């Protein structure tokens, strides 16, 4: 980000070693711009592996960053954010400045996180980015998978395949079970308009559509179609970095 404006970005899978992944993602974002590593005045790291980013000047939780990022992407009306990543799911409430007022999260159970979608993508041999669209391509909506646990849901899916269900129907049952679990989390924190979805799951239309149906409210579409909702956390972190530069915070390296 340059002076609060998005300049370049990259999204990639985290590989073993959060630090190397962060290095690579940064190098990729800089690639094709006229900038170099040394041009970056302040770096804030966020997310699950944030403490391992050794070149960061500061670490901030992904909860704060997602709220801040959502406020930037969608604007001040955002009050509720669902951030569903590959390993956990958070329901966040914030004020008109993108400041967090409360949150609940599930990081204990893979059900209701992106991980369950990954498990099924692997089981059914379907690319993960096609799951949402395929799941909506069913004539009648099946009952959600009844198992809470992903391990049991897998056995349940195999039995359904034996019963003659096709893959699309299984995916529909998976997406609606996932949406239900996310809705439970959201109701605990309380849903207030406007609602937005961030994280990787924002790209799964099958889960998002069913979540909206379950809650009876629509989430805001991404205002700027070039802005990836998966970036919300990183954008929030960049905004906090912009603040730090404004406040003239010394850009100390955390591990030096």
């Amino acid at each position, binding site marked *: 980000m340059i002076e609060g404006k998005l300049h370049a970005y990259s999204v990639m899978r985290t590989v*073993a070693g959060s630090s190397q992944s962060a290095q690579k993602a940064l190098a990729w974002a800089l690639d094709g711009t006229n900038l170099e590593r040394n041009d970056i005045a302040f770096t804030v790291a966020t997310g699950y592996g944030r403490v391992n980013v050794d070149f960061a000047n500061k670490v901030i939780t992904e909860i704060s960053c997602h709220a801040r990022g959502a406020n930037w992407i969608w604007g001040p009306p955002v009050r509720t954010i669902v951030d569903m990543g590959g390993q956990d799911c958070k329901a966040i409430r914030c004020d008109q400045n993108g400041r967090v007022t409360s949150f609940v999260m599930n990081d204990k*159970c893979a059900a209701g996180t992106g991980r369950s979608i990954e498990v099924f993508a692997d089981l059914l041999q379907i690319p993960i980015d096609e799951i949402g669209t395929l799941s909506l391509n069913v004539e009648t909506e099946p009952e959600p998978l009844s*198992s809470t646990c*992903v391990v049991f849901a897998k056995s349940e899916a195999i039995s359904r395949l034996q019963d003659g269900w096709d893959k699309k129907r299984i995916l529909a049952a998976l997406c609606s079970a996932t949406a239900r679990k996310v809705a439970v989390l959201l109701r605990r924190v309380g849903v207030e308009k406007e609602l937005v979805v961030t994280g990787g799951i924002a790209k799964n239309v099958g889960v998002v559509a069913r979540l909206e149906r379950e809650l009876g409210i629509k989430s805001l579409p991404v205002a700027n179609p070039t802005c990836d909702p998966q970036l919300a956390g990183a954008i929030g972190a960049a905004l906090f970095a912009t603040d730090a530069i404004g406040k003239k915070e010394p850009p100390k390296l955390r591990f030096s």
Partner: protein
Amino acid sequence: MISAGIDVGTRATKAVLLRGHSIMARAQTTTGFDRPAAAKRALEEASRAAEVSFDSLTEVAATGAGKNAVSFAKKPVTEVVADARGSLHFFPNARTIIDVGVEEARVIKCDDAGKVVDFAMNEKCAAGAGAFIESMARALDLTMDEMGTLSLQSHNTIPLNAQCVVFAESEVVTLMHTKTDKRDIARAVHDAIASRIGSLLRMIGIENQVVFVGGLARNTGLVESLRKNIGVELLVPESPEYIGALGAALTVANEIAGK
């Protein structure tokens, strides 16, 4: 008079034949997708072993997750009752019974008369059932038997932080990459599930004697981890996986005997 009990589990289907109250034969088979066929197969095998004709078996009771699929059974028996009856057959002083299967864990409390007074179960989360150990064994490339043996050789307690099977699998893989001793990982896996079964037990209260049944009671590592967690010795019958089927057969035998 011969009575039969069939326990249709999620993984294995077991059958036990009784003459009066003594065991004549037993057999087990993989459940697979066709539960009625598995039940029939297990019973046929047991009848062959007992040298009686399959058609003469009319006094049949079924239990287990697939009990309602056994059309030739006279009646279904709940798993809780079957476990209690079967355990008390070998250990008349049993007051607490633990049954850990592949997809379910159950704890049962009995009074002095052997009547079930309370029970608790986990059927929602694989982290508290045998599927947890199976999954970790697969990641470690070990058999269930090896898991148990190696676990007993460990002298280090390492924590397994993830609660969920799916997440714990990644954690185990990470531990393997950091060259953690397989024996210590095996023990960590058993300690983790033991603590979950321990919580389930504390919900109903632990009273001596404690009997451990079900397929997972064969895992010596789990037995040891659970013993340490609850601080009470565990009694394990010789063939713990047959206790449910035995219990079901005993309910029929008791009816015949007019008890």
